[in-house]
């Protein structure tokens, strides 16, 4: 049996607990070091299917106060798609008025996740 130990840092909140994940034949058998349950699920996920929230900002037209409006993926996307998402945002412009939560780009890169505004403009 192949036993593997991975040392990770939980990134679910800024406390950044140090996690130890033990895998056996690719199966997670234990997660330790977490302070709360989110740490355990993060540890499991990070070694099998890592994801991230991506944030950026895009130009906004017609706003009196802002040149740029900040945006994010409405939920996590696979980590290996970060650059695809950023590339997809290259030519996106928002048009004022924009409210927090407005969809700026739907279903980015076929992930099923929308890009939403995080600031009003």
């Amino acid at each position: 049996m192949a036993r593997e130990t991975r040392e990770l840092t939980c990134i679910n909140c800024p406390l950044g607990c140090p996690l130890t994940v033990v895998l056996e034949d690719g199966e997670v058998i234990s997660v330790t070091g977490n302070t709360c349950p989110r740490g355990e699920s993060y540890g499991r996920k990070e070694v099998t299917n890592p994801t991230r929230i991506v944030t950026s900002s895009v130009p906004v037209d017609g706003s009196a106060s802002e040149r740029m409006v900040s945006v994010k993926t409405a939920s996590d996307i696979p980590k290996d798609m970060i650059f695809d998402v950023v590339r997809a945002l290259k030519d996106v412009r928002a048009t004022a008025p924009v409210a927090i939560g407005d969809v700026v780009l739907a279903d980015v890169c076929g992930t099923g996740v929308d890009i939403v505004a995080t600031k009003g403009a």
Partner: protein
Amino acid sequence: MAKTIERRDVVIVGGGPAGLAAAISAHEAGQTDILVLERDTQLGGILNQCIHNGFGLHTFKEELTGPEYAARYIERAAELGIEYRLGTMVIDISPERLVTAVSSADGITQVEAGAIVLAMGCRERPRGALATPGYRPAGVYSAGTAQRLVNIEGQMPGREVVILGSGDIGLIMARRMTLEGAHVACVAEIMPYSGGLKRNIVQCLDDFGIPLLLSHTVTRVEGRDRVEAVWIAEVDERMQPIAGTEVRYPCDTLMLSVGLLPENELSRDAGVQISPVTRGPVVDQSLQTSVRGVFACGNVLHVHDLVDYVSEEAAAAGANAARFVAQAQAETEADRGIPVVAEGGVRYTVPSFVSPQLMDDRLTVRFRVANVYRDHFVSVYLDDERIQHRKKRVMAPGEMESVVLRRADLLAREGLQRITVKLEEE
């Protein structure tokens, strides 16, 4: 000369997360005559340029971006009808709580305040911190300035980047620049550990394979008009560059993330006593400074990495300011309370004085440690008796820690002389 002098119960200097939370809680504590003065053109402070996620998990149980977190407080302040003035910079505070501000709309105005909450935040250590000889070419930015350029102005400072200092802003900008198509060659940190949050090292450097060079610093900046390269060397325990370890990194941009300093010029003018360790005011259990009726919270008090703690601290300061006004300054000048002493690896505590009679049932005392400590205990002593002893797997200077004092514990000990917070190996 000032045109008018108005009188307000609570005046809050700064409309960032600290100022907003203080205003909201002062209002909720019953003082509705509140005025927030903000020099920027919008409320929200530094959060407006922090477009990354990671804010508010403790407070809202969800992970927000900086602008979203700020919006929650801005909306709440609006609901309560809290008055604020934008584009209004406070230029003087007198010990008698006369606040002088200047704005292009109203010129110079003066406000007599029943209580004042200082919430001016902090600024970045200037580039003077970069002790390198030679020219001062274009292309050297503080990380915060670069963050503002990219996120708010939509401009890229450069394409080939080296970052000096592993503070959170530097780490965040390493990722941001990478996502925007720049190449970040490395982050050099003179200390043997990073000053940033662990999660930022994982998410901003490790995710993108950006090397973090600990115990390294910039020794030379090449280029006359624009940065052309920087030289980075390893340093010894005394932080002196080690001969023969210099490596040249061609680049067009050098970003500095070498620390933040509370912005306390105004506090000093008011006669507020400043701690040489935190560079912020010395405060008691109510977050009151050495000047009566002047309170402080947020990054102006001590530099925070988590906005949740800023909001929490500021809410306490706001409520205490409201209470001060209500008591119509009934309290005597009396003693400042029992000193909280930082020892054995604890660099400072906020507050540094506690008056058990005046404190709430529970009081959070925040502190930072001087080094990286593994498997150490955080202990609290009342005089010589240890009343708390809690093991922590890891503590680092980049992450704020806290202990909670209970009023009952302190009251139970008559003649208590000192409260000590320290780290112990066992």
